[in-house]
Every structure is written in C-alpha cells, then in structure tokens.
C-alpha cells in the first residue's frame, strides 16, 4: 500500500488507495459515502440487489482501521443509504460497527441520504466538524464571496475520473483536490460515481486541480488537462 501525501491548508494528509484520508498528526481517518444498507434499501422496493454490500464495505473499513489505528474516525455523510438504514442492519453488522467504534471518537457527519442518524448506532453525529485548519462536511460549500473556502474535506459527489493511456481509457474512483478543497471518492460497495469534469464538481474547484485515481495498491495523480470526460 503506497499512500500519496498532499497538503491541504497547511495540513499534511495522506491519501490511501482504499479511498480514505489519513491525518497522522490528528490521529484521524476520514471516509465518505459508505451508503450502508443500499442493497436492502432497493430490496424494500422490489429490486433484489445482493445483500452483501454492508458486509463488503465494513470489511474494507475494518482493514483500514486496523492499519492506521486512528483515535478518531470521521464518516463524511451518506453513511447509510437512507434514514431507515441503521434499523435494517443485520445484527452481526451492527455488532461490527460497534466494535470498530469502540475506544474511538466516531463522528457521523450527516448527509442528504442520512440527515438524521439513529441514536443507538453509537458515536456522535454532526452537520459539520472543524478541527484546526480543516473543516469536514458532507457536501462542498460554494464560496459565499471573494474569500475562498480553505481546508475543506468533503464527499457527496462520488468523484470518478478517466485518462487515456497508451492502450485504452482507464477510469475509476478518485480523490480530487485543488489545494484548498479535497473531495473524497465514495467508500461504499455499490456507490455510483460522477466524472470530476462534470461542472457539478469542476465548478467547485480552482482551474488547476489534481485527480488521484485509486489503483489496487497505490494512487495515480493526473492534472485536469490529462483527464477525459466519460460518463460510464
């Protein structure tokens, strides 16, 4: 596993190829858009997606926390696919979340899919969180005036990017940052994605930005000029 070091508003951060941000000095691991219980959310409406997505997502999260042993875990919203999600957790998955959170400060940032978190899920919930020079929220905030937003870490958009290589186009989930903001890829097993060149994402960023594509054990950084738009 090779992480990519970046600096955001003066804070050195590590981007992990699993799709998480690690702030070593802060003892912090950040993930976005877990979308737990997305499968069962669809099943309720008669679309019988495989019921293994929560398990798959928690497997990856557990590996990540075992590696970094953070004091604090921040989930950047849309942790559950819908507000009833926590209620549908299988008992084993519920126990697992509790075990992961034990002895840690666990913060559920609320998102548009989960504006309210069930109290019995453990941890605490917040609309946003500021630690030192960094602000953690679900969806990037547009600058209200001439003062740019600095040090913002967010999720929501599920960024994806593609690049033309010598053989073919390669695309996948990515981090995207312009040095002031950092947007995380979705961590959830069934989460879809949006191209970073879509105005919804690129419009939030300065003209120069980098996308860090997730490789199997490392990240690959590309400046905006090297990216190609691709929807699927």
């Amino acid at each position, binding site marked *: 596993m*090779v992480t*990519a*070091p*970046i*600096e955001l508003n003066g804070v*050195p951060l590590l981007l992990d190829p699993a799709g998480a941000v690690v702030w070593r000095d802060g003892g912090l691991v950040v993930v976005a858009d877990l979308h737990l219980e997305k*499968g*069962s959310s669809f*099943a*309720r409406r*008669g*679309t*019988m*997606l*495989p*019921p*293994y*997505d929560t*398990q*798959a997502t928690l497997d990856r999260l557990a590996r990540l926390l075992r590696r970094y042993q953070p004091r604090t875990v921040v989930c950047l919203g849309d942790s559950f696919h819908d507000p009833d999600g926590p209620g549908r957790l*299988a008992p084993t998955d519920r126990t697992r979340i509790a075990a992961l959170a034990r002895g840690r400060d666990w913060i559920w940032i609320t998102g548009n899919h989960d504006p309210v978190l069930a109290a019995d899920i453990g941890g605490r919930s917040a609309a946003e969180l500021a630690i030192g020079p960094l602000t953690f929220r679900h969806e990037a905030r547009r600058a209200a005036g001439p003062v740019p937003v600095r040090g913002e870490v967010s999720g929501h958009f599920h960024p994806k990017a593609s*690049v*033309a*290589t*010598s*053989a*073919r186009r*390669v695309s996948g989930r990515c981090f995207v*940052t*312009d*040095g002031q903001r950092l947007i995380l890829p979705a961590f959830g*097993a*069934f*989460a*879809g*994605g949006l191209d970073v060149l879509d105005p919804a994402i690129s419009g939030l960023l300065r003209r*120069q*930005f*980098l996308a860090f*594509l997730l*490789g*199997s054990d*490392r990240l*690959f*950084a*590309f*400046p905006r000029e*090297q990216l190609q*738009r*691709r*929807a*699927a």
Partner: protein
Amino acid sequence: MSTAPALLPEPFRAWFAARGWSPHAYQLAMVEAATAGDSALLIAPTGGGKTLAGFLPSLIELAAAPAPGLHTLYISPLKALAVDVQRNLQAPIAELGLPVTVETRTGDTPASRRARQRLRPPQMLMTTPESLALMLSYADAPTLFGRLSVVVVDEVHALAGTKRGDLLALGLARLGALAPASRRVGLSATVAWPDALEQWIGAGRGHVRRIVGGAAAAADVSILVPEGRLPWGGHMAVHAMPAVYRAIAEAGTTIVFVNTRAQAEIVFQELWRLNAANLPIALHHGSLAVEQRRRVEAAMAEGRLRAVVATSSLDLGIDWAAVDLVIQVGAPKGASRLVQRIGRSNHRLDRPSRAILVPANRFEVLECSAALDAVAAGTLDGQAPRPGALDVLAQHVLGTACAGPFGADTLYVEVAATQPFAGLARAEFDAVVRYVEDGGYALGGYEQWRRLARLPDGRLALAHPAIARRYRMNVGTIVEATTLKVRLGRGRVLGEVEEYFALGLTPGDTFLFAGRLLRFEGIRDMAVEARPASGDQPKIPAYAGGRMPLTTHLADRVRAMLADPGQWDRLPGPVHEWLDLQRHRSALPGSDDLLVETFPRGALHYMVAYCFEGRNAHQTLGMLLTRRMERAGLKPLGFVATDYVVATWSLEPVRDPAPLFDEEMLGDDLEEWMAESTLLKRTFRNVAVIAGLIERRHPGQEKSGRQVTFNSDLIYDVLRRHEPDHILLRATRADAAEGLTDVRRLGRLLARARGRVLHRPLPRISPLAVPVLLEIGREGVEGARDHLLEETAAALVAEMEAGPDAPAIS
C-alpha cells in the same frame, strides 16, 4: 398428398386462378396439416408465397366458420414485418370478401388500442415476442387466448437460439396451456438444424409436420476483385466502389449488404461520391431514426430506389420481388447467412438469384472464395440453438405470476417441454423461482420484501400489484447499449449513436452519420447536437453492432485453401503473391497445426497465432494468453483478435509459445479470467436487466443506461465475492461461454494445437501478419490497468513521492 380441389374451397381456387397462380405444393401441404390438426414447420426460401402458406389455412377456416375472438396469432421478430404482413393480407381478404379482421400490436400501438384489443381482439393479430409476453402477463390472458386456433411464427430460424427466441418459446408453451387445441406453425429459411427447429416450434405439444418448400434455382454468385491495389487490411472496400457502382447502374434494384453500421456509412458515402447519374441510392441501418428507416423501406417497396446500402437490419422481412442483385461488401462470415442474403434477390423461385461478393481485404478474398465453394456445395452452417437462458426464464416466471397464481410443479413441466429448456434440471428451475421470489441469496436477508408470496394451496402469487406494473415496463430481452440521439442543431433527430462514441468527440470533430458528414457541436439534454459539415476527413462511427464471428465451417474451408497451394491459382494475383511471399518468409498455417509467429516491431514484441476460430474465441484466447504472459513476466500490453488470428504485444519477447497454448488454460485460468473480465461484467449487466435485478425503466422515473452500467459492475463484484454460485452468475457464465467467449471453439483449437505448435521466430513482420496489425479496436490487458496508469502518471508519482514537504499543488 391431396390435390388442390380437395383441399382448397371453391372461392380460394377461383382466387388463385384469377391471379394466374396455381397453389404451390407446400401451400397445400400446410392446409392439409391444418386439416389434420397438426403443427407444421415450413422450411422454404424467402418469398414465393411462404407467408401466404402460413395464413392460408386460417383464412379457409375463418371463411368456413366465422367466429369472433382471436383465431390466429402471428409473431414476427420485426415490428415492420408484422405491419407489412398485415398490409399484404388485406388484399386476399378483400378480394375473397372474407369477414376477417386483422390488426397489429407492437410497442408502437397506442395504449387505447392495446386496451381495446384485449377486450375485443381481432381474429388475426400480428405481433412481436415482447408484445406476446406482455399480453400473457395480464389476468385476462386465458380469455383472450382461450379460442386461439393457431400461432404462426415467422423467421423462426432467426429467433430460435436467441434470448428473444427463449422468451417466445416459453410464451408458446404458455399459449399451449391456455389453448390446448391450438396448433403452431413455424416459417423458416433453410437451416443446418431443422430437427431442433421442429422441436422448438412443437413447444412440447403434439406432432409437427415438416414441410419443405421448393428449393430456389442455384444462385449466380461471383467475387469482385477490381484491377489494381488489393488492400491489406480494413473492412470498407473503398477500392472496389467504382466497380460496385457500375454493377448497381447495370442492375434494376440492388441491395448492398455490409456487416457493420460503420461500413454502411462509408460505403454509402463512397457510392454517392461516384453517383454521377444521381441514381436513387439509400441507406438503412439499425442506428437510424425509425421514421427514416420506414421511408427507405417504403421507397424500396414502391420501386423508387435503385439501391439500398443495408446492414443485417434488412436480413429479414419485407418481401421485395423487384430486387435483382445482391452485393455483399466484406466477408460473408457464414455460408447460411450468405445464402439467406442472396435469397433477398429475385424472389421468384424459378429464376436464379444474382449476387456479387466484394472482399475488402486479402483475408476476405480467401473467405469469400470459401463461401462461394460452400454455397455451390449446398452446405449450410451455423450452430444449432444453445440451451435456454436462465435470466429469460426468470423473466418468464415473474410474468407468469403477474397473470395469476401458479403452481411450480405445473410450470416446471410446461417449461421443460420447450426446446430451449428441455434439459433443465428441477433444481435449476427451483433456483430461478427462488431468485424471483426474494433474490435467491444464500444470506436470506430479504424475506420480508418478497416479490412472490406462497398461497395456502402451495401456489405462488405476486406479493404486490406494483410488481406487475414494473414487470410490464421492463419486459423483453433486448438490452441496448446506452445511446444518445443525434440531432441536426436542436431540430430533427437523425438517429442514435452509442454513448461511448459520442463522449469521445470534441466540438469541431466531424463524423459520418445517416449518410451525411456532420460536425459535432456538443451534448445537450442527452442528445448529440451536430451540424452539416464539409471537407475534412471524418471520424468514423465505430459501432459495436453487426459483427458476426466466422463460422467453423468457413474457417475450415479457409484453412484448407491456405494449406493447399494447388488451389491458389484461382485466387486473384495479389493474393496469390501474398501467400507465396508468406511461404517464403515464414510458413503457411497447415490444416491441423497452429502457426505462431513472433517478431519485434518498434519497442514491442509481437506474437501472432493463426487459429481461424472466429473473433469471439480469439478474444477469449487473447485474454488467456496475456494472463499467462503476465505470469511469465513478459509484460503483455494488449492484444487484438480478428476472425482469423490473435496477436499479442508485450515488452518482453515470447521465446517459447507452446506452453502458452496449453489446454489447461481452459480450467483455472478461464475461471479466473472470466470472473474478472469486463466482458463478464457487460454480460452480467444484460443478464441482470433481463432477469429484472436491475430495471431499465421504473414507473415515473427514466433510469439512464449510464446508471445501469455503473451499478451493475459493482453489484457484480460484490456478488462474485460473496456468492459466486448465485443463479445470475451461473447464467452470466453460461452466456459468456456460449456467446462472446466461444469456449467450445477455443477448446477445439487448443486440442488441435496440442504438440503441433509451429513456432516461427522472425526478424520482422510476416506478410500474413500485416492485416491483423492494421486492425483497430485493440483490447487492453485487464491486469495492466495499473501498469498503464503508472506509465502515464510516472512523472507525477515521482513528484508526489518526494514527500509532504513538496505538496503536489502549492
């Protein structure tokens, strides 16, 4: 056989006589089968009254005993054909003064008329397999079909062995249960596997009479190789267009068949460039707007066109007696397919059809010669229908539940009696039913959200009526690639292109579409906006559609021709020289060895294997070879597969190819690769859509194909990891093995190659290898994703790894 007077009632005899016709023997045989209450399979060349033969018994019955209610159901693979047949039937009905109502019902029929048709059906209804599935899903299906006397399935050969055919076979079995006395009639072109077709049309009920129509006169087929340069590669045959144009000018009406939509656009463009006489030449392919296609068909039927350039979109259907020449541009890929295309010309059986084959490159010259030999020998090819697909069965089970509660035992018996599902094990059927019930996952997490409920009597019923609504919005087995409409400015829609093509365009790019050169302006509201352009070299639409792999039979003939220099004298000069040069520089692929060449080129090392097993098998082989090369540290970067060869390129040279072709690759390697390949993901997406796991359409919400693509890949990954034996994954693997991966032919090839790999290390590219390296559409190596990203990102990675002191962006 009885004579006409005995079988044909007086008005019908008079009708035939008034037109100066005498009924064909096979038309009378069809009447005889109907009188005996037998189902029938009519195998006859297109035209010559085949469709009338299908309807004649119904007209006679209805004339003798007019009765309200649906009497005859006609099912065609094409909406246009259903409409056309309805129109053609009007003439005899009017002339005979029969009190018979005939209507069509397709996706284009207004909802109000569809509702009325269910209440008060016509006596004859022309429809498609999808519309039949829909009608069967309503609770009133037993009333609607209760008095049905006969089902006529047109172009059965084109349906059997496809997923649409599976759905229709299940529908036929359903109809058999709803109307036990009904008969089935199949109308088919000549095929290599009539027995399977007979079982297919029988749908497990009663005896089927096979009736063979008069054989057409031997076709007059020639190969056109113009003087001068014969291309090494490419599929457009632009070099031959002046000669093609002359042939069109000399004939009455010509169909110019091509294999892909991109070919159609280029050929059309080239013909118009040469069209000094302003001959009316039109274009017809599946991407064009429906109205445009209909206009071309109508103009053709009215004899207003001199030529139409068409893909397989015109393989079936509309009967144009006026066509007197068929030109096949590009290799025909199969003997049966060629015979069917040739049969599109001159529907009068007493005169020979005339056809010209136009090979686009040197390999295609060989293939055309082989096809010509096969046609002359009267050999037919093509594979018999493969077993029915489980995703289609899942759709049918849900559809059956939509119509009303069903017993699993009864349905199993009905399903297993059809030809596609004849070998279906009960356990497999039960797994499909369980999937429909609650997803069928081992982790039975969804029991509270079942789609089917078990009634006290053990039957299964729909858990909620909303499920039926959704089923009806998603019925069918045609899963289309995501497409974007192409508009002229914000105005007229010209047709649709695949999304990946549209996304590869940047404003200002030009491309050929619908016979015009267009300039890409942008994408707006899920549509490509374009303006007419002039000049520039166009980018060519590279559509996926329309590619057929070379049949085994033709492949064998091509290989035999290569191995026997005695046959080369009848080949055109440049081809003969090309083969001589190959024999001199390298070697020729023998009848039962496997020639493998290796040579360096630029910074890369190439390996070319002359397998002749068709693109799909080669595609699979390419994947497996590059996996092994990866493991051997040869750093493969990609491969390309054609119908004839597979070529790989790598950073390190292959020194000993034989072990790479070991048959063992069909075991673990294949399993492993299948599990990871994008091809499987694409196949899974289709399976998931057909089986109703992912919906194309949702009441009140159009789901874009884009979302479907993305979700299904992730679902595939999760399902594969957690439940590799799930029924949908089994269906996906079966699909891939039969279709795009063609594992059967790959097995044949590897068995043949055992101990017979003929390796020729060469200093440079061989003559025979030139065409393959000119092929576009290269497939990357799955595992190479990270290599490729690394290569592209190397500079930046170095910069990043300098550490936190050097932020990537300052």
